[in-house]
């Protein structure tokens, strides 16, 4: 039994990492917005999805204009991801304007924003579906294959207890790009004044504005960054998995949100870690649960497994893995 699990480990790690970094970046979007508004932005998963579709549109446009064949793939990729990221970033800012800022002005209870975010989420899903269906007749969109060169990690010959593992070049791309994004963001938040302003706004908006901080601007920037990252991740997702539909955001959103909480919501490094860990856990469960339980439980229980681990973590560390316990001064 153990031998089986170990054999497969390299492949599980690779697959888990791929999914995990995607979770991680989307989780960061949740965590950033949460960190600043204490609001679970249910629409964020759909922002990610919209990013994927925007990427697809740009890609198809480039293809239609013949650039795809003419330019090196990596250049096409950069154009696509940058355009999609900026567009989704702006979308995020727009969502904030329409759905959250008016509520802030009216001093509405925090949870009411949950409703607008759910509303936005429905609207985005349906709009994207309309457009996709209008153009292609089916809302499941398959992107032209890119970066699908196959690599085999020849582990078996060196370490006989491992099986060989395979991956595509898109895996490397996803990994490199997300790591760049994560590091850049971490620097931005921890090393610039913006980061401190964000945290101050998060903790006490009124007082932050007394400190000459333009609260609305800080919030807009936060939404821009979070959404742009989400959109860029959408593009990565499209390239890695090839197929997207308007509901990928819903499914992935729940997971990413879970990852954000697992790491300690509001904490950016926590979200990164939570995402990767969730991806690995899920992949591990999907490929090993039935081996471990002798068939009593199969891959279909992978989410149960992930959620149980999450609950256990939170029971023992209620503030998430990276969150610091906030001792309330009484």
């Amino acid at each position, binding site marked *: 039994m153990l031998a089986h699990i170990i054999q497969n480990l390299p492949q599980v790690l690779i697959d888990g990492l791929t999914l995990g970094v995607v979770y991680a970046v989307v989780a960061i979007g949740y965590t950033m917005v949460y960190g600043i508004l204490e609001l679970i932005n249910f629409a964020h998963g759909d922002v990610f999805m919209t990013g994927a579709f925007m990427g697809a549109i740009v890609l198809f446009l480039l293809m239609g204009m013949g650039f795809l064949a003419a330019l090196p793939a990596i250049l096409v990729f950069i154009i696509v991801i940058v355009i999609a990221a900026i567009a989704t970033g702006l979308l995020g800012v727009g969502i904030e304007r329409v759905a959250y800022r008016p509520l802030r002005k009216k001093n509405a209870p925090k949870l009411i924003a949950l409703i607008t975010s759910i509303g936005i989420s429905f609207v985005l899903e349906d709009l994207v579906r309309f457009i996709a269906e209008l153009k292609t007749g089916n809302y499941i969109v398959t992107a032209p294959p890119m970066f699908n060169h196959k690599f085999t990690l020849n582990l078996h010959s060196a370490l006989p207890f491992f099986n060989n593992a395979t991956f595509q070049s898109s895996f490397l791309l996803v990994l490199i790009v997300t790591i760049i994004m994560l590091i850049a963001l971490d620097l931005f938040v921890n090393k610039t004044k913006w980061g401190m302003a964000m945290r101050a706004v998060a903790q006490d908006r009124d007082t932050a504005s007394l400190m000459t901080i333009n609260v609305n601007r800080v919030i807009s920037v936060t939404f821009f960054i979070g959404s742009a990252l989400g959109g860029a991740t959408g593009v990565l997702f499209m390239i890695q998995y090839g197929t997207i539909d308007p509901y990928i955001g819903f499914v992935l959103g729940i997971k990413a949100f879970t990852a954000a909480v697992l790491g300690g919501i509001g904490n950016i490094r926590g979200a990164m870690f939570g995402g990767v860990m969730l991806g690995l856990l899920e992949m591990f469960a999907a490929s090993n649960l*039935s081996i471990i339980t002798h068939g009593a439980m199969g891959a279909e229980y992978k989410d149960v497994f992930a959620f149980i681990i999450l609950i256990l973590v939170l029971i023992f560390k209620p503030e998430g893995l990276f969150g610091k316990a906030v001792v309330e001064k009484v």
Partner: protein
Amino acid sequence: SPKSGGSNGKTVIEIGSQSPLSGGSATLGDAIRLGAKLAIEDRQKEFEKKGFQIKLKDLDDQGDPKKGVANAQILASDKDVLAVVGHLNSGVAIPSSEVYNKNNLAMVSPATTATVVTDRKLPTVNRICARDDFQGPAGANFAVKTLKAKKIFVIQDKTAYGSGLAEQFRDQAKKLGAEIVGYEGITVGEKDFNGVLSQAVAKKPDLIYFGGVYAEGGLIIKQARQKGFDGPIMGGDGLDSSSTVQIAGDSVKGVYLTSVAGDVSKTEKGQAFAKKYKKEFGKNVESYSAYGYDAAGVILEGLMKAIDGNDDKKPTREQVTKAIRSVQNYDGVTTKVSLDDKGDNKYAKVYIYNFAEAKYPPVQKAEISQ
């Protein structure tokens, strides 16, 4: 208040239709609706002669059981609706048909294959396609006997349809002596199936079987190929769609599928149908277009009988239900229909297809009758 004022004073009879017009399998659902529409148009004259006007009341079940049930309520409460063409998905048909049955409303399904649909022996529930305990084992026979698969890995999507089919396949394959090296479930709506697939590939099976629909199936095919699995992959009627090819791309080569829908282009009658369909709606026929047409045909056949048996007056739902169930040797464009006491079609067939190239439709390999 019956809407008796149809055009030129004819009594209106409505036929309901429920299928997913939005959602992942909207293409198939729309095909059913359009097929039914065409059937009604084709026979409208006959009914007009008797003083009736037939209308189609088409609703979108969104592939969602709750929506299906809610719609079923709407249909049931409309007294002019005397029968329903539908559903595409077994998961929707099962709860919805509980409502139909409560209201004596006959349903004829063109596409639901799960065994439970008719095994409940509800007098109102009928279908014209094959059952999964025919389709699944047929696939297993082909996999084990023709493709010589000894080790099989089964994946299913945990829906009423997918797991029912996969179970039937598995049991028959086992019976035939194949070893089932894995039996795993996936989650509908996800895109990453690498976890299950790395387990599958590690077990080095001769064949991977998938019980489910193309949205996931296409990706499973693609990701299995990426993992270096080049053996045959097999599935059921859920993969019988052009979308499978779209999603899986080149990886679709070497995929086999069983379907309960025959290729209309094989017969002259079918070709004529396809042409007319194209002319009318500007679309190519999908696998279930003709089944929608035939399901509606069966209903109209029954309806006519009921009218005849009721002195040319508008029949009751009970009469229509009985008349439909008694339809025998109805000759449709794609299948002959004789309903048995459960509501299953004696003439239903299973077809086996193979994708030799990344092109839809695939090549027919076999046609199996009961």
